[in-house]
């Protein structure tokens, strides 16, 4: 047994019902460092046992019961029907909120995509890469900007945006034909 294995067993000794076996004992007899860890483990285990066995008791348990009983007089119980209604209302509210925010989000994405595409086109000569270019590639056909508008802005026909444009051009042409 090496120190690593010994430490693993020692750790389990603190938290689980694991006892030191013959292999561990043999290792501990020859290894000073593990021997110290073993002694500490035994003490740690004792402390853990103490915490487990301990039964903290409130000073005045009757007082807790009385406080609870007097508090519930002011708190009406929610009947199963009320709970069912509450759960249904909660579910309906969740769906309504999901739809509302979903629609809002859709509009935001749509606007951002259009802006990104315009930015891509206007900056046709500049070199940039990454998500913006990919977004613009993808969004040219979605953004609802007219084909002639893109062509006009891209008259220079250079740079990344130009490549994006040529990639999408085929798709746009096909779409226009339809």
């Amino acid at each position, binding site marked *: 047994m090496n120190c690593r294995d010994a430490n693993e067993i020692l750790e389990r000794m603190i938290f689980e019902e694991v006892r030191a076996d013959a292999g561990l004992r043999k290792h501990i007899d020859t290894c000073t460092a593990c021997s110290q860890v073993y002694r500490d483990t035994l003490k740690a285990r004792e402390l853990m046992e103490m915490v487990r066995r301990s*039964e903290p008791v409130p000073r005045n348990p009757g007082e807790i*019961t009385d406080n609870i009983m007097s508090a519930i007089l002011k708190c009406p119980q929610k009947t199963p029907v009320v*709970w069912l209604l509450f759960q249904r209302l909660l579910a309906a509210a969740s769906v309504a909120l999901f739809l509302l925010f979903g629609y809002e989000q859709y509009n935001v994405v749509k606007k951002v995509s259009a802006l990104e595409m315009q930015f891509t086109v206007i900056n046709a000569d500049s070199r940039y890469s990454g998500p913006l270019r990919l977004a613009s590639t993808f969004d040219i056909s979605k953004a609802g900007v007219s084909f002639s508008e893109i062509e006009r802005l891209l008259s220079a026909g250079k740079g990344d945006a130009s490549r994006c444009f040529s990639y999408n051009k085929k798709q746009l042409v096909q779409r226009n034909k339809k």
Partner: protein
Amino acid sequence: MIPENLQEIIRCVRNGDRTAFRKLVEMYQQKAYRFAFRILGNEEEAKDAVQESFIKIWQKIGSFDPSREFIPWMYRILANTSTDRLRAMHRHTMIPIDLVSQSTGAMQQCDPVTPADNHELAILIKGLAEMLPEKQKLVFILRDIEGMASKEVESITNLTEISVKSNLYHARKSVREQLFRMMEKERRIL
């Protein structure tokens, strides 16, 4: 007449029977207090958490499915209430390690713990679990201190099996380190 059987008590409580509820409180109050105390490490806070939890149980008993186990459901409410309180308390006061070592010495002399010893136990528990994040603390107390099965811990904490295992692993590592620091301190004193 107050029913003796738990299912019958719950059925009565669901129908608004306060006497049956009193019986339920008396049956589980100590268990609840012990758990809350272990989470919060403070007698007054633990008492308040127990009271608040039982009031919630009274109010929400209509949503409880009687075909399921009551105790995990009670623990779930208790765990949520206690962790909320813990969060509020957690403008926390760190317990110095020397104090923890001293308290263990005092505690070793008396067993089981009486109200007078709660203070020492509180220091020890706080000292051990102080540095643990909320989830780790909850999983550690439920699994290693309360001795619950992993499935019960999953059901109470609403965590997956993997998450429970991972939280327990990290919690044990921290507690072990803390315990060893205590031993180191003790050695230096001797």
